């Protein structure tokens, strides 16, 4: 039986705490809070949503297909990210940016100066790009700097490793900041997490999967582009120039075409792998994998 989940969603405005120390911050009391959003059996988890007809600063939170609250944060830039029981976001103050995190029900705390990049799915660390200081860093949720990075992009694996491109392979950072190179003798680009410790990569000859523990590279026959993979690694969203997007089951190669309400551009998986959100140029939808049920979100794009 699916567990009922109560999620307290935070309206981020007015949070004065800027605690960067390791422990939980003490809310200062002036932190406005939104009502609790009850999860329910058979519904997707809480997501951040953006209406493609909206302006750049309007983001919602809620259960896709159900009800939403607006995230109110002056200076909010780009989409907030839900990870590890909190909401990560960037805010602008003049020409400067801050990356912050707000645990559900808490005021936000400063992660680091700079613009938020990719966030660990469990919310333990994030990439932060500080244009003013001229550096990109891997920063723990507490604000502790784990590593200096040479680029401001990368992908997180589901077990919390950051994968970045290198000339003839990839580099992998763990949550202590330790860096390890995986040289595969060719140029590959990380394209998304696959399973607990794998990564989709693009190569000169098509899509492939790399095991980050062994460095073993497996080319995907007949797949020109793999868009994303389920968190358990058993499904791939694949793109075919003639057939469109499909859901490929890796164990037997069976591919089911995905019907969308517009040209698809991106996906987001729930952490349990039960829900797949598809973003299109005309809005979004959420698919429940167990029965294929599709929820049309209209112009809303949902990120889990």
């Amino acid at each position: 039986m699916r567990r009922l989940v109560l999620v307290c969603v935070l309206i981020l405005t007015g949070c004065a705490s800027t605690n960067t120390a390791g422990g939980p911050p003490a809310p200062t009391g002036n932190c406005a809070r939104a009502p609790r959003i009850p999860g329910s059996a058979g519904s997707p988890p809480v997501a951040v949503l953006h209406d493609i007809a909206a302006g750049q600063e309007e983001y919602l939170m809620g259960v896709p297909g159900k009800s939403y609250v607006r995230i109110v944060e002056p200076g909010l830039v780009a989409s907030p990210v839900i990870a590890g029981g909190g909401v990560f976001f960037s805010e602008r103050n003049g020409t400067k940016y801050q990356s912050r995190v707000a645990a559900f029900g808490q005021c936000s705390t400063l992660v680091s100066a700079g613009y938020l990049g990719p966030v660990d799915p469990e919310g333990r660390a994030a990439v932060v790009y500080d244009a003013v200081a001229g550096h990109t860093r891997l920063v723990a949720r507490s604000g502790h700097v784990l590593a200096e990075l040479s680029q401001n992009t990368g992908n997180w694996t589901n077990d919390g490793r950051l994968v970045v491109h290198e000339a003839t392979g990839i580099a992998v950072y763990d949550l202590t900041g330790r860096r390890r190179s995986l040289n595969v003798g060719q140029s590959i680009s990380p394209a998304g997490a696959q399973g607990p410790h794998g990564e989709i990569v693009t190569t000169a000859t098509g899509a492939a999967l790399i095991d980050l523990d062994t460095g073993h590279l497996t080319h995907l026959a007949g797949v020109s582009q793999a868009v994303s993979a389920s968190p358990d690694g058993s499904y791939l969203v694949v793109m075919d120039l003639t057939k469109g997007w499909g859901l490929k089951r890796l164990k037997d190669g069976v591919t089911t075409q995905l019907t969308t309400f517009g040209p698809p551009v991106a996906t987001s998986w729930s952490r349990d792998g039960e829900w797949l959100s598809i973003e299109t140029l005309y809005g979004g939808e959420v698919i429940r994998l167990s029965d294929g049920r599709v929820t049309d979100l209209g112009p809303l794009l949902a990120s889990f």
Partner: protein
Amino acid sequence: MATPSAQPAPAASQLPDFNARLGSNRFAAEAAVAVGRQLFSQGGQYWEVNVRTDPLTLGATYQPAAPGPATRPVNGARSVTVFMATESSGAIGLFRAGGTAHEKAEITMVATLLSGLFPGAATISIQIYFGESNRYATGVYSGGSLDYRVG
């Protein structure tokens, strides 16, 4: 908005609350998305759609977290102009398949959708482009009938 909040920073409030690539105001932008979805449902046609109302801004305030469909009828538009453009050979092929009668049927479908979203609009003009500057046809929908001209 779920709770009272601080006033937005001045720099933030200067940004429009709608996607200007899609429309002249939030309701128009939402309508453009609805038109795009409707066209895509006709075999997968991809069109870029922009909707402009006259006046450009309407008096109503859009409530993003309100329950119900995101695309909502609104009063205050005297007329509506739609620009729909595609460079997709597939979209052009599907649109032109069946000749002018099919094209008129598709444009009538778009106009009917928009007349429901902007019930006060006396005319709905639709300009169809193949590419960015090659206008292929124009349709003017008024009083329930369409005047459609190619060229």
